[in-house]
Protein backbone atom coordinates (compact mmCIF):
# COMPACT_ATOMS: atom_id res chain seq x y z
CA UNK A 1 0.00 0.00 0.00
CA UNK A 2 2.74 2.43 0.99
CA UNK A 3 4.56 1.99 -2.31
CA UNK A 4 1.28 2.57 -4.15
CA UNK A 5 0.64 5.81 -2.25
CA UNK A 6 4.19 6.88 -3.02
CA UNK A 7 3.77 6.06 -6.70
CA UNK A 8 0.50 8.01 -6.90
CA UNK A 9 2.08 10.96 -5.06
CA UNK A 10 5.02 11.11 -7.45
CA UNK A 11 2.75 10.81 -10.51
CA UNK A 12 0.41 13.56 -9.30
CA UNK A 13 3.12 16.01 -8.21
CA UNK A 14 2.88 18.11 -11.41
CA UNK A 15 -0.91 18.30 -10.95
CA UNK A 16 -0.51 19.43 -7.35
CA UNK A 17 1.01 22.83 -8.17
CA UNK A 18 -1.63 23.48 -10.81
CA UNK A 19 -4.63 22.44 -8.71
CA UNK A 20 -3.40 24.23 -5.60
CA UNK A 21 -2.90 27.52 -7.43
CA UNK A 22 -6.03 27.47 -9.60
CA UNK A 23 -8.08 26.12 -6.66
CA UNK A 24 -6.74 28.97 -4.55
CA UNK A 25 -7.76 31.52 -7.18
CA UNK A 26 -11.23 29.93 -7.18
CA UNK A 27 -11.57 30.08 -3.38
CA UNK A 28 -10.28 33.64 -3.22
CA UNK A 29 -12.59 34.79 -6.02
CA UNK A 30 -15.60 33.28 -4.28
CA UNK A 31 -14.79 35.20 -1.07
CA UNK A 32 -14.31 38.45 -2.98
CA UNK A 33 -17.71 37.89 -4.57
CA UNK A 34 -19.31 37.53 -1.16
CA UNK A 35 -20.34 33.88 -1.53
CA UNK A 36 -20.79 31.89 1.70
CA UNK A 37 -17.88 29.45 2.23
CA UNK A 38 -20.05 26.32 1.89
CA UNK A 39 -20.79 27.18 -1.71
CA UNK A 40 -17.25 26.95 -3.20
CA UNK A 41 -16.47 24.04 -0.87
CA UNK A 42 -19.44 21.96 -1.99
CA UNK A 43 -18.54 22.79 -5.56
CA UNK A 44 -14.97 21.57 -5.16
CA UNK A 45 -16.17 18.36 -3.51
CA UNK A 46 -19.18 17.55 -5.72
CA UNK A 47 -18.62 19.40 -9.01
CA UNK A 48 -14.82 19.24 -9.21
CA UNK A 49 -14.29 20.87 -12.61
CA UNK A 50 -11.83 23.74 -12.72
CA UNK A 51 -12.89 25.77 -15.75
CA UNK A 52 -16.60 25.26 -15.05
CA UNK A 53 -16.29 26.24 -11.38
CA UNK A 54 -14.34 29.40 -12.16
CA UNK A 55 -16.68 30.60 -14.89
CA UNK A 56 -19.78 29.65 -12.91
CA UNK A 57 -18.82 32.13 -10.17
CA UNK A 58 -19.61 34.90 -12.64
CA UNK A 59 -22.90 33.18 -13.54
CA UNK A 60 -23.90 32.94 -9.88
CA UNK A 61 -22.96 36.57 -9.28
CA UNK A 62 -25.22 37.69 -12.11
CA UNK A 63 -28.00 35.34 -10.86
CA UNK A 64 -28.18 33.58 -14.20
CA UNK A 65 -31.25 31.38 -14.78
CA UNK A 66 -30.93 27.69 -13.88
CA UNK A 67 -31.71 26.41 -17.38
CA UNK A 68 -29.02 28.63 -18.87
CA UNK A 69 -26.54 27.40 -16.26
CA UNK A 70 -27.42 23.82 -17.15
CA UNK A 71 -27.03 24.32 -20.90
CA UNK A 72 -23.80 26.33 -20.61
CA UNK A 73 -22.28 23.77 -18.21
CA UNK A 74 -22.90 20.97 -20.71
CA UNK A 75 -21.10 22.92 -23.44
CA UNK A 76 -18.22 24.12 -21.26
CA UNK A 77 -17.70 20.47 -20.30
CA UNK A 78 -18.13 19.03 -23.81
CA UNK A 79 -14.49 17.95 -23.91
CA UNK A 80 -15.04 15.57 -21.00
CA UNK A 81 -17.23 13.33 -23.15
CA UNK A 82 -14.14 12.48 -25.12
CA UNK A 83 -12.27 11.21 -22.08
CA UNK A 84 -14.80 8.59 -21.06
CA UNK A 85 -15.08 7.25 -24.59
CA UNK A 86 -11.46 6.15 -24.52
CA UNK A 87 -11.52 4.59 -21.06
CA UNK A 88 -14.12 1.82 -21.34
CA UNK A 89 -11.58 -0.96 -20.95
CA UNK A 90 -9.57 0.37 -18.00
CA UNK A 91 -12.66 1.51 -16.08
CA UNK A 92 -14.42 -1.84 -16.51
CA UNK A 93 -11.77 -3.28 -14.23
CA UNK A 94 -12.31 -0.66 -11.50
CA UNK A 95 -15.28 -2.48 -9.90
CA UNK A 96 -16.72 -0.60 -6.92
CA UNK A 97 -14.35 2.29 -7.53
CA UNK A 98 -15.75 2.96 -11.01
CA UNK A 99 -18.38 5.57 -10.00
CA UNK A 100 -15.73 7.70 -8.30
CA UNK A 101 -13.35 7.29 -11.23
CA UNK A 102 -16.06 8.47 -13.64
CA UNK A 103 -16.98 11.39 -11.38
CA UNK A 104 -13.38 12.53 -10.87
CA UNK A 105 -12.28 12.37 -14.51
CA UNK A 106 -10.82 15.86 -14.91
CA UNK A 107 -8.50 16.94 -17.74
CA UNK A 108 -5.41 16.27 -15.66
CA UNK A 109 -6.55 12.94 -14.20
CA UNK A 110 -7.45 11.80 -17.71
CA UNK A 111 -4.04 12.89 -19.01
CA UNK A 112 -2.29 10.85 -16.29
CA UNK A 113 -4.47 7.77 -16.70
CA UNK A 114 -4.24 7.69 -20.48
CA UNK A 115 -0.49 8.27 -20.56
CA UNK A 116 0.14 5.34 -18.20
CA UNK A 117 -1.44 2.17 -19.59
CA UNK A 118 0.06 0.21 -16.67
CA UNK A 119 -2.37 1.96 -14.34
CA UNK A 120 -5.26 0.11 -15.96
CA UNK A 121 -3.92 -3.03 -14.29
CA UNK A 122 -3.41 -1.39 -10.92
CA UNK A 123 -6.75 -0.07 -9.75
CA UNK A 124 -5.59 0.96 -6.27
CA UNK A 125 -2.95 3.31 -7.68
CA UNK A 126 -5.39 4.62 -10.29
CA UNK A 127 -7.91 5.39 -7.55
CA UNK A 128 -5.30 6.98 -5.26
CA UNK A 129 -4.14 9.13 -8.13
CA UNK A 130 -7.68 10.38 -8.82
CA UNK A 131 -8.39 10.98 -5.13
CA UNK A 132 -5.06 12.78 -4.55
CA UNK A 133 -5.78 15.11 -7.47
CA UNK A 134 -9.15 16.01 -5.99
CA UNK A 135 -7.60 16.54 -2.56
CA UNK A 136 -5.21 19.09 -4.09
CA UNK A 137 -8.17 20.87 -5.67
CA UNK A 138 -10.09 20.97 -2.38
CA UNK A 139 -6.90 21.99 -0.56
CA UNK A 140 -6.40 24.87 -2.99
CA UNK A 141 -10.01 25.97 -2.50
CA UNK A 142 -9.53 25.97 1.29
CA UNK A 143 -6.30 27.97 0.96
CA UNK A 144 -8.11 30.52 -1.19
CA UNK A 145 -10.97 30.76 1.33
CA UNK A 146 -8.46 31.24 4.14
CA UNK A 147 -6.52 33.85 2.22
CA UNK A 148 -9.77 35.67 1.43
CA UNK A 149 -10.60 35.86 5.14
CA UNK A 150 -7.07 36.93 6.01
CA UNK A 151 -6.94 39.83 3.56
CA UNK A 152 -8.37 42.82 5.41
CA UNK A 153 -9.22 44.67 2.25
CA UNK A 154 -10.52 43.53 -1.07
CA UNK A 155 -7.78 42.43 -3.40
CA UNK A 156 -8.81 43.82 -6.75
CA UNK A 157 -8.51 41.90 -9.97
CA UNK A 158 -8.37 38.25 -8.82
CA UNK A 159 -11.06 37.58 -11.42
CA UNK A 160 -8.31 37.98 -14.00
CA UNK A 161 -7.29 34.37 -13.22
CA UNK A 162 -10.34 33.31 -15.23
CA UNK A 163 -9.10 35.26 -18.25
CA UNK A 164 -5.60 33.83 -17.77
CA UNK A 165 -6.95 30.26 -17.59
CA UNK A 166 -9.04 30.56 -20.75
CA UNK A 167 -6.36 32.52 -22.64
CA UNK A 168 -3.86 29.80 -21.80
CA UNK A 169 -6.20 26.98 -22.87
CA UNK A 170 -6.94 28.92 -26.04
CA UNK A 171 -3.26 29.42 -26.89
CA UNK A 172 -2.63 25.71 -26.46
CA UNK A 173 -5.56 24.87 -28.76
CA UNK A 174 -4.40 27.48 -31.27
CA UNK A 175 -1.08 25.68 -31.76
CA UNK A 176 -2.97 22.99 -33.67
CA UNK A 177 -3.63 24.51 -37.10
CA UNK A 178 -6.70 22.34 -37.64
CA UNK A 179 -8.49 24.16 -34.80
CA UNK A 180 -7.95 27.64 -36.18
CA UNK A 181 -10.86 28.11 -38.65
CA UNK A 182 -13.50 27.19 -36.07
CA UNK A 183 -11.75 29.31 -33.42
CA UNK A 184 -11.87 32.32 -35.74
CA UNK A 185 -15.54 31.60 -36.41
CA UNK A 186 -16.21 31.37 -32.66
CA UNK A 187 -14.51 34.75 -32.13
CA UNK A 188 -16.74 36.34 -34.76
CA UNK A 189 -19.88 34.70 -33.32
CA UNK A 190 -18.87 35.79 -29.81
CA UNK A 191 -18.21 39.42 -30.70
CA UNK A 192 -21.36 39.76 -32.83
CA UNK A 193 -23.48 38.20 -30.05
CA UNK A 194 -21.90 40.53 -27.51
CA UNK A 195 -22.83 43.53 -29.66
CA UNK A 196 -26.34 42.21 -30.26
CA UNK A 197 -27.52 41.15 -26.81
CA UNK A 198 -24.96 42.58 -24.37
CA UNK A 199 -22.70 40.97 -21.74
CA UNK A 200 -25.39 39.13 -19.74
CA UNK A 201 -26.86 36.93 -22.45
CA UNK A 202 -24.27 36.78 -25.20
CA UNK A 203 -22.58 33.58 -23.99
CA UNK A 204 -25.82 31.62 -24.23
CA UNK A 205 -26.56 32.95 -27.71
CA UNK A 206 -23.00 32.45 -28.98
CA UNK A 207 -22.72 28.90 -27.62
CA UNK A 208 -26.10 28.00 -29.06
CA UNK A 209 -25.08 29.28 -32.48
CA UNK A 210 -21.72 27.53 -32.24
CA UNK A 211 -23.20 24.15 -31.31
CA UNK A 212 -25.86 24.38 -34.04
CA UNK A 213 -23.24 25.35 -36.64
CA UNK A 214 -21.02 22.43 -35.73
CA UNK A 215 -23.95 19.99 -35.71
CA UNK A 216 -25.08 21.29 -39.09
CA UNK A 217 -21.60 21.09 -40.62
CA UNK A 218 -20.88 17.64 -39.23
CA UNK A 219 -24.22 16.44 -40.61
Amino acid at each position, binding site marked *: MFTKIKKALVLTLPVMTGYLSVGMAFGLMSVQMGLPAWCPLIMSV*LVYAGALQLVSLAWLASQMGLLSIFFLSLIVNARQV*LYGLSLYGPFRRMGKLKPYMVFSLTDETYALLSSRPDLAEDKTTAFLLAALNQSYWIGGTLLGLGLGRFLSQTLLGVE*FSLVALFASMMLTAFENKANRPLMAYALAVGLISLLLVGPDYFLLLAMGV*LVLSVLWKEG
Partner: protein
Amino acid sequence: MLTNGYLISAVLVLIVANLLTRALPFFLEGADPALTERLSRLGKVLPPAMMVLLLVYGLRDLGQVGGLEVGPALLALGLLWLVHHFFKRPLPAMILSTVVYVWLVNMGGTL
Protein backbone atom coordinates in the same frame (compact mmCIF):
# COMPACT_ATOMS: atom_id res chain seq x y z
CA MET B 1 -28.80 39.86 -3.38
CA LEU B 2 -27.84 36.20 -3.65
CA THR B 3 -30.21 34.05 -1.61
CA ASN B 4 -29.27 30.66 -0.21
CA GLY B 5 -32.19 29.14 -2.12
CA TYR B 6 -30.78 30.35 -5.43
CA LEU B 7 -27.23 29.29 -4.57
CA ILE B 8 -28.31 25.79 -3.54
CA SER B 9 -30.35 25.28 -6.72
CA ALA B 10 -27.59 26.68 -8.93
CA VAL B 11 -24.93 24.47 -7.32
CA LEU B 12 -27.22 21.44 -7.72
CA VAL B 13 -27.63 22.23 -11.42
CA LEU B 14 -23.83 22.50 -11.77
CA ILE B 15 -23.37 19.14 -10.01
CA VAL B 16 -25.91 17.37 -12.24
CA ALA B 17 -24.75 18.92 -15.52
CA ASN B 18 -21.10 18.19 -14.77
CA LEU B 19 -21.86 14.61 -13.77
CA LEU B 20 -23.87 14.11 -16.95
CA THR B 21 -20.95 15.06 -19.19
CA ARG B 22 -18.60 12.76 -17.29
CA ALA B 23 -20.99 9.79 -17.14
CA LEU B 24 -22.56 10.11 -20.60
CA PRO B 25 -19.89 8.09 -22.44
CA PHE B 26 -20.32 5.23 -19.99
CA PHE B 27 -24.10 5.17 -20.50
CA LEU B 28 -23.35 4.77 -24.21
CA GLU B 29 -21.04 1.80 -23.79
CA GLY B 30 -22.12 -0.71 -26.41
CA ALA B 31 -24.40 1.79 -28.18
CA ASP B 32 -24.44 2.49 -31.93
CA PRO B 33 -20.84 3.28 -32.96
CA ALA B 34 -22.14 6.00 -35.30
CA LEU B 35 -23.53 7.87 -32.29
CA THR B 36 -20.35 7.60 -30.21
CA GLU B 37 -18.35 8.57 -33.28
CA ARG B 38 -20.46 11.72 -33.65
CA LEU B 39 -20.14 12.53 -29.97
CA SER B 40 -16.40 12.15 -30.04
CA ARG B 41 -16.25 14.47 -33.08
CA LEU B 42 -18.19 17.06 -31.07
CA GLY B 43 -15.92 16.55 -28.07
CA LYS B 44 -12.91 17.17 -30.30
CA VAL B 45 -14.17 20.08 -32.39
CA LEU B 46 -16.11 22.14 -29.83
CA PRO B 47 -13.63 22.74 -26.98
CA PRO B 48 -11.09 24.98 -28.83
CA ALA B 49 -13.94 27.18 -30.10
CA MET B 50 -15.45 27.14 -26.58
CA MET B 51 -12.22 28.50 -25.12
CA VAL B 52 -12.45 31.47 -27.48
CA LEU B 53 -16.01 32.19 -26.32
CA LEU B 54 -15.06 31.83 -22.67
CA LEU B 55 -12.15 34.22 -23.16
CA VAL B 56 -14.51 36.75 -24.76
CA TYR B 57 -16.81 36.16 -21.77
CA GLY B 58 -13.95 36.84 -19.34
CA LEU B 59 -13.17 40.06 -21.17
CA ARG B 60 -16.80 41.11 -21.70
CA ASP B 61 -16.67 44.08 -19.33
CA LEU B 62 -13.13 45.16 -20.20
CA GLY B 63 -12.69 48.87 -19.64
CA GLN B 64 -16.14 49.35 -18.09
CA VAL B 65 -16.91 50.48 -14.56
CA GLY B 66 -16.28 47.53 -12.23
CA GLY B 67 -14.78 45.54 -15.09
CA LEU B 68 -11.21 44.64 -15.98
CA GLU B 69 -8.86 47.54 -16.58
CA VAL B 70 -7.63 47.81 -20.16
CA GLY B 71 -3.94 48.68 -19.67
CA PRO B 72 -3.10 46.09 -16.99
CA ALA B 73 -5.17 43.43 -18.77
CA LEU B 74 -3.36 43.94 -22.07
CA LEU B 75 0.02 43.91 -20.33
CA ALA B 76 -0.81 40.75 -18.39
CA LEU B 77 -2.15 39.00 -21.50
CA GLY B 78 0.97 40.00 -23.44
CA LEU B 79 3.09 38.52 -20.70
CA LEU B 80 1.02 35.35 -20.72
CA TRP B 81 1.52 35.01 -24.45
CA LEU B 82 5.29 35.57 -24.16
CA VAL B 83 5.77 32.91 -21.47
CA HIS B 84 3.47 30.56 -23.37
CA HIS B 85 5.24 31.11 -26.65
CA PHE B 86 8.87 31.06 -25.57
CA PHE B 87 8.85 28.74 -22.58
CA LYS B 88 5.83 26.51 -23.37
CA ARG B 89 4.81 26.61 -19.71
CA PRO B 90 1.05 27.28 -19.41
CA LEU B 91 0.80 27.20 -15.60
CA PRO B 92 3.62 29.64 -14.76
CA ALA B 93 2.27 31.83 -17.55
CA MET B 94 -1.18 31.87 -15.93
CA ILE B 95 0.10 32.51 -12.42
CA LEU B 96 2.54 35.21 -13.51
CA SER B 97 -0.01 37.10 -15.60
CA THR B 98 -2.64 36.97 -12.82
CA VAL B 99 -0.13 38.18 -10.22
CA VAL B 100 1.03 40.99 -12.50
CA TYR B 101 -2.56 42.05 -13.21
CA VAL B 102 -3.55 42.00 -9.52
CA TRP B 103 -0.38 43.90 -8.62
CA LEU B 104 -0.95 46.55 -11.29
CA VAL B 105 -4.58 47.26 -10.37
CA ASN B 106 -3.85 47.34 -6.64
CA MET B 107 -0.99 49.81 -6.98
CA GLY B 108 -3.74 52.35 -7.34
CA GLY B 109 -1.95 54.28 -10.05
CA THR B 110 -3.44 54.75 -13.46
CA LEU B 111 -1.70 53.28 -16.41
